[in-house]
């Protein structure tokens, strides 16, 4: 007899099936890719694991990279709830970072906490404005939000470069144009000396949990599912579609902007072109792997952070060029999209499982209960 708990676990895990399949096929393809080049492919797996999770240092390295990914993934996942595919997180991140870097210059000297809060708010406003603009263009001007956000991201990067290398440049930054460095009291430190990861990780996890509560339990989250489900029903229900879409864009952009603030105040110390390092783009990958579920984003960001963290080790030990991790990420993305076609099937299987493994035993129990009462 099939066990009901097994069925229930199946129902819970089925949504993860496409992602798990994608991981497996990506691994197979990557091994084939290494074999073609005559590299010792069987060493790659253990190396990735060692570089990502093999030691405390590896964990720190992984989580340090995962933190901004969680926030930039929210920039994709939140608008996705309303049916938008936003891929402009990179622009929101760098503009958020820039806003955070210049806030202390423009405000009077403040104690650390108020200043950090002001920097956070400024970064979220900048990021939220940028992605919100994509949402506004879509709702009011019919501009496709995917293309709109991508182009706006390029514009954002250009504005960032222009300001950092021009008007906002610190004259003392010679070979690496930067904004003036943050006062050390405004820099965000690590969680503890024995766990060398900055507070951005906590911010990322908190943001994901809040986003999860929002989309899963709140009235707004329910309305967002209706808006994302189909374009006509929410209007028939009188839902404020434009406002809801804008809200997800502003919240998502705010998350990406906050990632920029942490990169500036916890890693770089000023806004410079090192901010443009692909976290916004990798966030798209994380959000798709997590199927836009904010809790799953935490896990997927750690996984992808681990892949990036292990890149160095792969390069050194196997003598591979540093583009190899990018190829691995690209393969993962293509595989995720390819396995996405399973989603329709998983819905059917879910129904089947519910019917055969859960409902039936439960109905049996209810019958028993009734006879005992009678």
């Amino acid at each position, binding site marked *: 007899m099939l066990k009901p708990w097994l069925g229930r676990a199946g129902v819970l895990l089925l949504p993860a099936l496409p992602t798990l399949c994608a991981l497996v096929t990506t691994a197979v393809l990557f091994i084939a890719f290494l074999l073609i080049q005559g590299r010792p492919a069987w060493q790659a797996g253990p190396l990735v694991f060692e570089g990502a999770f093999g030691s405390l240092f590896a964990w720190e390295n992984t989580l340090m990279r995962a933190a901004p990914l969680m926030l930039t993934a929210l920039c994709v996942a939140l608008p996705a709830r309303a049916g938008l595919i936003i891929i402009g997180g990179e622009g929101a991140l760098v503009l958020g970072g820039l806003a955070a870097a210049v806030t202390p210059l423009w405000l009077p000297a403040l104690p650390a906490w108020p200043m950090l809060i002001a920097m956070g708010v400024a970064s979220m406003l900048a990021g939220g404005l940028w992605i919100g603009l994509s949402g506004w263009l879509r709702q009011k001007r019919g501009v496709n939000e995917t293309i709109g956000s991508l182009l706006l991201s390029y514009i954002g990067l250009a504005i960032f470069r222009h300001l950092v290398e021009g008007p906002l440049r610190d004259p003392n930054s010679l070979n690496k144009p930067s904004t003036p460095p943050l006062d050390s009291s405004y820099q965000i430190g690590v969680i503890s000396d024995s766990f060398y990861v900055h507070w951005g990780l906590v911010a990322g996890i908190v943001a994901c949990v809040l986003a999860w509560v929002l989309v899963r339990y*709140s*009235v707004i*989250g329910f309305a967002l*599912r*209706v808006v994302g489900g189909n374009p006509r029903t929410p209007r*028939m229900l009188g839902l*404020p579609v434009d406002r809801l879409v804008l809200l997800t864009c502003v919240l998502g952009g705010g998350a990406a902007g906050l990632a920029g603030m942490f990169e500036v105040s916890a890693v770089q110390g000023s806004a410079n072109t090192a901010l443009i390092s692909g976290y916004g783009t990798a966030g798209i990958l994380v959000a798709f792997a997590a199927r836009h579920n904010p809790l799953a984003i935490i896990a997927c960001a750690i996984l992808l952070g681990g892949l990036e963290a292990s890149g160095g080790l792969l390069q050194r030990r196997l003598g591979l060029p540093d583009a190899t991790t990018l190829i691995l990420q690209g393969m993962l993305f293509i595989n995720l999209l390819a396995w996405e076609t399973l989603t329709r099937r998983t*819905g059917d299987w879910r129904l089947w499982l*519910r019917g055969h493994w859960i409902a039936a035993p439960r109905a049996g129990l209810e019958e028993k209960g009734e006879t005992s009462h009678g």
Partner: protein
Amino acid sequence: MRALKLETIGASKTFGTFRALDKVSLTVRAGTVHALLGENGAGKSTLVKGLVGYSPLDEGNILVDDREYAVRLPRDAHGLGIGMVYQHFTVAPGLTVAENLVLARGDLPARIHWKAERERLSAFMDGMPFKLDPDRPVAALAAGEKQKLEILKQLYLDRRLIILDEPTSVLTPQEADEVLGLMRDLAHDGQVSVLMITHKFREVTAFADDVTVLRKGALVGSCKVADTSPEALAEWMMGRSDDRTVAGERPPVDPDRGPALEVAGLEVNNDKGVRAVHGASFVVRPGEILGVAGISGNGQRELTEALLGQRKREAGAVRVHGEPYHASRREMLDRGVHSLPEEPLRNASVASMSVAENLALRSFDQAPIRRQGWRVSRRVIREQARGLIERFQVTPPDPDRPIGTLSGGNVQRAVLARELTEEVRVLIVSNPVFGLDFASVAMIHQRLMDARNRGAAVLLLSEDLDELLELADRILVIHDGELVFEAPAGRADRAELGAHMAGGGERAAS
């Protein structure tokens, strides 16, 4: 005689554990029109899909002119001369009539010799009882002409038995009568045999020679039309007599009560930006059903969408209970404006969300579902759903199933359960029973009538004249985006309404 005799013996088909068709035997006599009646899900489509090889039968024999053949592929059916006209047009709108006919042939050479083909075509047209100009683009044809083209296409392909799947659902009453009359004449002339799926008794009694009724996949009976009556057929279909009339008293509309819904000078564009509704003005009073009749595509869709808030209004005013109305959620809630749009899965529900969640789409932001000002209570959603599912007989009665996995009738029941609450005061309804079985139709009509009798103002847009004549207090006719005619339902005449629907109002009046 060219026409085929077709017989099935013990035709059966199973999908998983569901027996869609159970040992159905029927005979289409050569040179006759045979009607196939049944509710939705009775197995009519399964049977004809098996006959044309689109989805082969699991068991059973197919006999053509008393010889047995296997039909496993559409090609087999073509070879036997069996063809099908589908409910929705399968002609290419960008091509001409001649191109559509020639391209329908599967045996075209790499280079088409148009001169020879045209000669063949005109010889063929000469032998036909009705003609279409071969050079007209299909996009310029009216619905009835497209349906004729579909039939011409079958004849051009030398079909000797033609299956019609609800052929008149897209036609005006006049067009329907003309097309079916032509088919009957062709059949009686010995050119073809016709197997016709329909929902409409009038078409059976007026045009068919024999009729077969299916119910739940099984054969109920088969007889000559002359030997039966609509009442007997309804009983066969339903398993009991159901004359579809709405029960209960029908209190008269109180003319002194102010209008609940007022529309003045409404202008609406279609998707291409072309004006689809011109200066629509009307009022609906509490306790009244105002019917809007019209052939599909004359602006009903745009009008409904503009009233529902799904489409922008270019000009004009809408007032509900005397106040301007902009279809915001607040206004819908405060003034009790609800709706049953057509295609409920697309317009009124979210396929990926569960039945329970779909039943909560009007109430999720109100107490008791809304808790502590921000939270949605799943428990209350499920409890509310259980009650509604039971009262409106939604099957399967599982609140957690995605609504997209339910049949059309059950989606409509679920939407009805949500929209037809006690508080509804204005109801905008569009083709509420399109494609539904009789049990659902009767239930939905009764609920609409109940809402009217409770004092709701109902605007009912429908392409089904019988539905309007049965339910409405007044009937407006929309043609080409304009409201061209109005009549009290009691004095409305089918032929006159039909003439106005077809745009021939002036001719009818003179």
